[in-house]
């Protein structure tokens, strides 16, 4: 299983690719940057795409919006969650 740094890089790529964010490279996203609002500028509907992408990539089903709010705070929170909950 990949280490935390590699997983964080993979998640950054996943966010950029699944949300088709232009002009941003994985290296431009800091691990503690907020993903929503002022950070990457994502909104709650963008999160739907991430929920589906996490299910596809890691077999993680997020059915509760409150859980989503906690894990999509930053790359750090997302990485910790995926490392703990991943099924594949």
């Amino acid at each position, binding site marked *: 299983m990949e280490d935390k740094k590699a997983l964080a890089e993979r998640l950054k790529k996943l966010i950029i690719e699944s949300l088709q964010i232009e002009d941003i490279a994985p290296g431009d996203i800091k691990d503690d940057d907020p993903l929503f609002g002022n950070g990457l500028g994502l909104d709650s*509907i963008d999160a*739907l795409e991430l929920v*589906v*992408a996490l*299910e596809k990539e890691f077999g993680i089903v997020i059915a509760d919006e409150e859980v989503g709010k906690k894990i999509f705070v930053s790359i750090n929170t997302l990485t910790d969650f995926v490392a703990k909950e991943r099924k594949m």
Partner: protein
Amino acid sequence: MDFDFTGKAALVTGGSRGIGRAISLALAARGAYVIINYASDDDAAEKTVSDITGAGGKAVAVKADVADTAAIEEMFGRIRKDPGRLDILINNAGIIRDKLLMFMGPDDWDRVIAVNLTGVYNTAKSASRLMIGQKYGKIVNIVSPSAIVGRAGQTNYAAAKGGVIAFTKSLARELARFSIWVNAVSPGIIQTEMLDGITEQMKESFLTAVPMKRFGTPDEVTGAVLFLASERSNYITGQILCVDGGLT
């Protein structure tokens, strides 16, 4: 103008009889693989599937009550495996339990809301997960003039279908950016077996409210559904297309 759904997978709820059957046949005749959901009538579902496959089309029947969240999740589990995608969802399943409000029991209210409104929540929720992953989907909800102009004896049905109209408009806004379209078709009084059981006098009284002075045909409803399920309607979402001869 005709439509081509070759390679597309479509789920039609309540797809074995009446308007749902006509929609299933029409989609299959234009190349779609049709998953026919039905609640109770095994013979009708089997007949619709065999009519489709007999004509060279592809279809399968899946029995599940749309009001049963667990059963619908299980049905979608099967769809995820085969055919592995869902391009078109037609929410057609519906029931009526007409009574004047004074005489409408809680069961009449709850069951009509459960099938007509919660059923749409159940299928659209599971479908949207699949469709967001695909970045493609067409959802068409079948509603009713009762939800638009009201009808005495149908407060439960009108409330449910009115809910579906509001649901359609809100979900359209949630899913538009993922190339998922959500629209509704509102059929007026349509010549199906439901009309066979009523008297000529009742038919006459229905027709007084219809400016075109005739009932619609199932084909006229499917035409609108196919349009909203096709690429021809790609700049239309959150809308209600009334196929009712001017009734509303």
